[in-house]
């Protein structure tokens, strides 16, 4: 076989490309680089990944109907065929359709489902059940091997040791996951001993969290009788399950925090109440003791024995008073008597005898006070202090003492 012309080779290669099953119709996922929208209306750019790139072109007739605006760095899935640009000897990817790769569609589906369920009232606050403050047994639907279940158990055991945990092991990603999750939720809901359910998984890509954006899962969660906390991925991940659940926890650990109370603060509160109880009763007992002491004092005060003592003392006092009065009276009388005696003494004729006077009496013992009562030669007695003299009257001169002068 003789030598071929360049153009013949290029033409041959082009035909090989176009007859190839794969190259003649394929989709390629890649990132746009070197994007140029030529004034002719055609678009030229490279599709690339970490290891390589393919020259790509999208003609005006095809790109006129594009729904997305292409730009540098955008990840797309492009459909078309591979052919040769004979003039340059370059093979190129001739693009007929483009859609934003993966994420775009998932987001759109997510938004549509969210809107639909929201309009049906599945997210309504009024339909949300109250999360029990102290669940006795928590049912958990998640993978039994992931970090999520370890985190949940660890936090629950740390915060509130008496809580029981029952795990329903379930796939949390892949096509079987939604069905298993629903089965687990329904099973736990049917049990009488479960008073709270947690379902979720650790962080992952949006595709990995897909099971929790499933419509069947959302409706199952909505139909549960048992309160449920969702705990999917990280703080920034929101899934449909989060919107339907009675409470959304940002992570599995956070779900455990929300599910059970902290035993330390419960205990502090309880001990505080205990102290108040003791203090309260001691105070009441103290008050009663004071009251009893007071009554006891009153009782002693009114004790008849004491009253008797008082009366006796009163009697003593009266007696003393009486004594005093009697004595005082006596003394009064005595001094009165003394006074009388003095007066009497002044009048006592016998006292005059002391001073040298005498008393004249006739034979009959009558006092002679005047010469008129005497006759001459009458026998009279003179009474003196220390005896008496019998004498006879020799003369009588009439006239008083005053007349003598």
């Amino acid at each position, binding site marked *: 076989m003789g030598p071929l012309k360049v153009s013949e080779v290029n033409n041959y290669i082009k035909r090989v490309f176009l007859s190839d099953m794969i190259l003649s119709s394929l989709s390629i996922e890649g990132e746009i680089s070197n994007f140029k929208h030529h004034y002719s209306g055609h678009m030229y750019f490279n599709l690339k990944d970490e290891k390589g790139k393919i020259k790509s072109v999208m003609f005006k007739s095809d790109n006129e109907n594009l729904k997305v605006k292409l730009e540098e760095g955008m990840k797309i899935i492009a459909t078309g065929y591979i052919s040769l640009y004979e003039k340059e000897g370059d093979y190129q990817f001739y693009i007929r359709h483009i859609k934003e790769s993966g994420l775009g569609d998932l987001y759109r589906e997510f938004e549509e489902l969210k809107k639909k369920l929201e309009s049906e009232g599945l997210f309504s606050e009024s339909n949300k059940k109250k999360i029990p403050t102290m669940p006795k047994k928590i049912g958990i639907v998640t993978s039994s091997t992931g970090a999520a279940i370890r985190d949940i158990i660890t936090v629950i*055991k740390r915060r509130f040791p008496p809580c029981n945990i029952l795990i*329903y092991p379930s796939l949390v990603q892949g096509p079987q996951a939604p069905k298993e999750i629903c089965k687990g939720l329904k099973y736990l809901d049917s049990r009488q001993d479960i008073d709270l359910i947690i379902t979720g998984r650790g962080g992952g890509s949006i595709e990995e969290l897909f099971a929790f954006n499933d419509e069947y899962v959302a409706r199952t969660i909505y139909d549960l009788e048992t309160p449920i906390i969702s705990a999917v991925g990280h703080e920034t991940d929101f899934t449909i399950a989060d919107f339907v659940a009675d409470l959304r926890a940002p992570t599995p650990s956070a779900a455990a925090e929300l599910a059970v109370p902290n*035993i330390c603060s419960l205990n502090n509160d309880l001990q505080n109440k205990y102290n108040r109880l003791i203090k309260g009763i001691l105070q009441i007992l103290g008050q009663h003791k004071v009251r009893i002491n007071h009554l006891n004092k009153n009782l002693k005060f009114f004790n008849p024995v004491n009253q008797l003592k008082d009366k006796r003392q009163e009697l003593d006092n009266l007696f003393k008073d009486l004594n005093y009065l009697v004595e005082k009276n006596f003394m009064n009388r005595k001094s009165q008597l003394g006074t009388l005696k003095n007066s009497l003494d002044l009048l006592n004729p016998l006292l005059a005898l002391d001073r040298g006077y005498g008393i004249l009496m006739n034979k009959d013992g009558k006092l002679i006070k005047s010469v008129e009562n005497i006759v001459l030669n009458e026998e009279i007695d003179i009474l003196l202090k220390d005896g008496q003299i019998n004498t006879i009257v020799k003369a009588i001169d009439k006239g008083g003492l005053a007349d003598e002068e």
Partner: protein
Amino acid sequence: MKNKNLAYEDAISKLESILEELEEDGCTLDESIDKFKKGIELYNYCNNLLYKAEGEVKILLEDKEGNMLDIEFPMEG
């Protein structure tokens, strides 16, 4: 305790109202002592709920007949 299934929160709020009555002190001594006794019972009841027993961690296994069994969950480390 009569009401074995009394919820912790209910027991706590009963205890709280007993405390308030006790602290208000409008009762006879007998009533106060009765209240105190009831308060201690409630305290013991709550304390028991918190510290009586460590909760169990179990995992469900489905046997061949499709019965669900609660099995002890092995927590390593």
